[in-house]
């Protein structure tokens, strides 16, 4: 699929439940673990001074939104393995952040409030452009709009898989059928 970290995340979402590596240093079983590793990532990268400070703060906020979405929308509904894969690495001056979950996916989440959604491509388009939340009537649903707008503003790149759809976002947004199916979500952020 890509580099080693991306391949680990890809395997993490595609493995059978008994083969998922829950001993991985990148596995966050709970939101608290995810939060502490997000803090650690930011502090480690600040020390390294490889990423411009403001950009790192925005990238951390984007990762926080995507990772917390996994917990928000799968609480009590995980297909099998609870939690998220969250890894990061520097490739020269490029920061790569990878997040994945084995949850319900965007289409199942949004169909509860928008039953007319026909497929995974439609679901991703709505998720990134409309103020809508699978947790209605709670008044929320601004997270992925924040993600999309800041990818544009900060010249970052995101590839986001859910179900049979693949979204690619930077200065433009392109969503189409993927050549793989992700039962849950897989996000690769390049900074």
């Amino acid at each position, binding site marked *: 699929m890509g580099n080693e970290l991306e391949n680990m995340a890809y395997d993490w979402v595609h493995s059978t439940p008994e083969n998922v590596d829950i001993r991985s240093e990148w596995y966050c079983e709970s*939101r608290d673990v995810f*939060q502490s590793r*997000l*803090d650690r990532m*930011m502090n480690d990268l600040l020390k390294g001074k490889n990423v411009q*400070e*403001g*950009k790192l*703060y*925005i990238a*951390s*906020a984007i990762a*926080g*939104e995507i990772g*917390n979405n996994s*917990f*928000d929308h799968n609480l009590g509904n995980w297909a099998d393995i609870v939690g998220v894969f969250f890894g990061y690495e520097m490739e020269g001056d490029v920061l790569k952040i990878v997040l994945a979950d084995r949850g319900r996916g965007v289409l199942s989440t949004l169909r509860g409030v928008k039953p007319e959604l026909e497929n995974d491509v439609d679901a991703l388009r709505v998720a990134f452009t409309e*103020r809508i939340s699978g947790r209605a009537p709670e*008044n*929320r*649903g*601004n*997270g992925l*709009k*924040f993600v999309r*707008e*800041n990818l544009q*503003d900060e010249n970052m790149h995101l590839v986001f898989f859910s179900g049979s759809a693949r979204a690619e976002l930077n200065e433009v947004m392109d969503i189409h059928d993927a050549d793989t199916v992700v039962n849950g979500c897989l996000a690769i952020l390049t900074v």
Partner: protein
Amino acid sequence: MKIELKKFGEVLVSRPAGREAYLAMSAYLTKDIGSDEPIEIDFSGVKVLAPSWADEVVTHICKEFGNVSLSNTENASVQATLKTLREYSDLKI
């Protein structure tokens, strides 16, 4: 009344954490504050702010109190989050 968000952490990203912060503020900081008294939300020391956390705190405080100001908002993620809240969460400040 000044609310220093750094006292809730440097990385403020999730809704549950934001909701907990708001409840703690309501119990210990703003309980006896009148709805027209000035409140300053101070973002100094916050490194990462995401809209999920801020929606539970900043949006709610601004709905509850009529005289709210924001200070030390220079951080890039604070700026970006406030922009999102103004656009999508009806934040009026």
